[in-house]
């Protein structure tokens, strides 16, 4: 095979002519810029890239990408993208969604896209609030959240999106943050390379209705001691001075955080996103507390499983391989199959 021709696209090529209409200061701007900046790396012609979204602030995203795009209806983007991706394996299909869109009204489509392993790159902008409807709590809002629809505090326990995706048999699960462009792009890169569904949660600040929700992970005073930056094949240590690490608790389930000084090097877990058993990635997804300390970012899980698209394509190819006649001849044969009789 010859080397693919370098398309020499730039971020500018991916900017559409539409005026961007998010609130000034919204985290979505940073994500849009990061995605537009990353797209040239794919070296895929713009016409073969499609962004499909649902409803919500994040779902306006496709309008701003100079690719093909569809802004669909609330929660249904994974279903629509499944039909597109399955019938058009030549396309690179991206789904942009939010915490309400993907986890509330569209929860069913998300989990089924993940279990099927449809070849979709799903970017979930999680701001833990309903923005477009002006500030109701979302399925990722913390218990007790005071919002317009919960004046005395929300009684709902939230979803952990990564745990949910892992439970839904996702083959690729990652998390990143709107404000860290370099990290965001590194996660997009890994997602793009993954065959099958890639689920990426992006912590995104809504400066109007839920400002500072992720400040613990962003502020210079707290972020280094709170973020666990996962790197494949590296021991999991974190903190300003690497003073924390992740270990398997003796006799317990899952993972826990300990002080590095009190831990031997052998005890520190070496991150391996390719572990088949989802229990490991699930344990990682459970590390953060309500205060967002011990929040892993990066690729938690990346395992190989044939994509739905490829299995369907194989079945289609196998069926077509047996065909020797024209479609018209074949169809005439089908019409006349079974018990027929002739009247002269």
């Amino acid at each position, binding site marked *: 095979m010859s080397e693919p021709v370098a398309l020499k696209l730039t971020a500018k090529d991916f900017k*559409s002519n*539409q005026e961007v209409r998010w609130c000034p200061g919204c985290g979505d701007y940073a994500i849009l810029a990061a995605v537009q900046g990353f797209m040239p790396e794919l070296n895929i*012609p*713009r*016409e*073969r890239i*499609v962004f*499909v979204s649902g*409803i919500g602030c994040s779902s306006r995203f*496709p*309008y701003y*990408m*100079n*690719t*093909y*795009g*569809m*802004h*669909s*209806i609330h929660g*249904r983007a994974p*279903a*629509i*993208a*499944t*039909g*597109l*991706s*399955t*019938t*058009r394996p*030549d*396309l690179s299909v991206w789904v942009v969604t939010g915490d309400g869109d993907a986890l509330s009204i569209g929860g*069913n*489509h998300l989990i*089924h896209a993940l279990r099927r392993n449809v070849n979709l790159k799903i970017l979930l902008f999680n701001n833990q609030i309903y923005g477009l409807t002006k500030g109701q709590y979302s399925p990722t809002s913390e218990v007790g959240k005071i919002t317009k629809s919960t004046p005395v505090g929300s009684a709902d326990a939230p979803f952990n999106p990564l745990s949910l995706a892992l439970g839904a048999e996702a083959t690729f699960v990652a998390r990143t943050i709107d404000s860290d462009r370099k990290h965001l792009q590194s996660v997009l890169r890994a997602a793009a390379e993954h065959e099958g569904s890639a689920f990426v949660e992006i912590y995104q600040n809504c400066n109007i209705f839920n400002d500072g929700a992720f400040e613990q992970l962003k502020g210079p005073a707290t972020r280094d001691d709170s973020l666990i930056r996962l790197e494949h094949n590296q021991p999991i240590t974190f903190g300003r001075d690497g003073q924390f690490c992740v270990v398997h608790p003796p006799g317990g389930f899952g993972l826990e955080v300990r002080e590095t000084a009190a831990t031997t090097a052998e005890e520190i877990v070496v991150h391996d996103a390719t572990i088949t058993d989802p229990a490991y990635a699930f344990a990682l997804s459970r590390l953060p507390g309500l205060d967002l300390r011990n929040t892993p970012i990066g690729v938690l899980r990346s395992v190989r499983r044939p994509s739905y698209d490829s299995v*369907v394509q194989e*079945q*289609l190819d*196998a*069926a*077509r391989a*047996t*065909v020797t006649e024209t*479609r*018209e001849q*074949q*169809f*005439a044969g*089908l*019409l*006349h199959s*079974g*018990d*027929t*009789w*002739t*009247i*002269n």
Partner: protein
Amino acid sequence: MTKKIRQLDRVVIRFAGDSGDGMQLTGDRFTSETAQLGNDISTLPNFPAEIRAPAGTLPGVSSFQVHFADYDILTPGDSPNVLVAMNPAALKANLADLPRGADIIVNTDEFTRRNLAKVGYQANPLEDDSLAGYTVHPVALTSMTVGALADHEVSKKDAERAKNMFALGLLSWMYSRPYESTLRFLERKFATRPELVGANVAAFKAGWNFGETTEDFAVRYEVKPAKMPPGTYRNITGNAALSLGLVAAGVRSELLVFLGAYPITPASDILHELSKHKRFGVLTMQAEDEIAAIGAALGASYGGALGVTTTSGPGVALKSETISLAVALELPLVIVDVQRAGPSTGMPTKTEQADLNMALFGRHGEAPVAVLAPRSPADCFYAALEAARIALTYRTPVLLLSDNYVANGSEPWLLPDVESLPDLRVDFATRPNGEDGATFLPYLRDPETLARPWAVPGTPGLEHRIGGLEKADKTGDISYDPANHDFMVRTRATRIEAIPVPDLEVEDPDGDAQVLVLGWGSTYGPIGAACRGLRQRGLSVAQAHLRHLAPMPANLGEILRSYERVVIPEMNLGQLAHVIRARYLVDAIGYNQVHGLPFTANELETMLEEVLKNV
């Protein structure tokens, strides 16, 4: 002994038994044998929604009615000449439908004290004189079948289960049916269990030989082939024909057909059938729910396939939001609603036409779509092709309203010449359409069809974004401009209204009818049979039947106004009548019935006779 042979012009047989007795299969086989002989046929399966209702009970009765004749017929027949009753429940559930003098073949082995008590028979009806008005043939079907299979290496249970083949053999003998196709069928069906092929064939032959030797059946009947146009035929159900129509749409459009579906009675058979045709480029996806099913179909259409979703009424309700999105996106999409009795779960295996309002109006916003309905099982093929043609040509969702009656009923189908089917090839947009030669305007319309360009992802230079937000005319950019919204809403309405559909034809052989019977969908057969009956008695009546419900034929208003009276029989509470009255200001009379069963020709004839008297 030599048996008398009597010629008949038509016969209606109803096979009835417990849900597990194989009555549908028995009826299917008898129908197939009858088709081979060249009779015209119409069938009506009738079964409960429960897979296996408690054995021997009235709710568990499953039946299959077949009407065959030496002339062209339109319905499965109002009342059976012959009832095959495999147990007391089957007798009790069906007796009221039989005219006096009808033949009843009963499986006496099942008329035990316990089975009689289960359905509330105080005394055995075979032993008192309650069946005196009928010709009863008591046959020990189960024990004779088991006896005939004594030398076969099959379990007692399998031997007993073959009793439906004994019954089929007997009926095949009575009506002189060719049985080779049934023997071939049994070989195919039990290919992996040869001992069952032998047992079922033996049971069939035992039934046949029993007819030939027993004195109880003194007469054998013949029904000569019907005079039908020359060509090759097969017997087909509506669901099978509709599936083939969708395959044909793929062949003639040269597009991939993508079906997104969620299992639902009575539409699931279309999913089953289409899943077998990958070699034609037909992809099927069993989605997680009705919404995902249509969503995936719409996504496939966006990518340049023919997106299809199949369901029944409850599913259409769930798909409604996505249909509106498809209206806004102006993409081709075929939505098949195999209607069943509602509301809610209703009677899932029974027929009704009560989704017309939902099809025409059941969406948020002004969201017009094309709507059409097949009139008979074989017509489902052509209706599916027509739905695909409209969807592809006019870039619109199309709702196809089948129903349980046409979906599961069957009739002979004169197979079409593939080359004669419409050419459905489409022109995808390939280059910018703006005046400057560089801009692409996704909502610039074809002046003739008012369709927008179908620019599929992968086409260089035509990158664009579409969505549910209102779009500016031509550019497709998001627009909140009041005048633009008004224009777009009106344009979406106009473009559906402007789809050319064939003029409505009126059947009025006498030419002087004052009463028009207007129908739509599956009532075609019963209405046609009723009109024939009236005409045979010297009365004039005109019949017209709508295939296109949106848009309606251009000449409909003129036709309606040229009759003294317009009668609209529907299996709902007057949904078409309501539309006709509102649209054309015609004082149409509704005749409405929601029994979950098709109209009988007889009840329509009686009703129409009353109308004729009062004109």
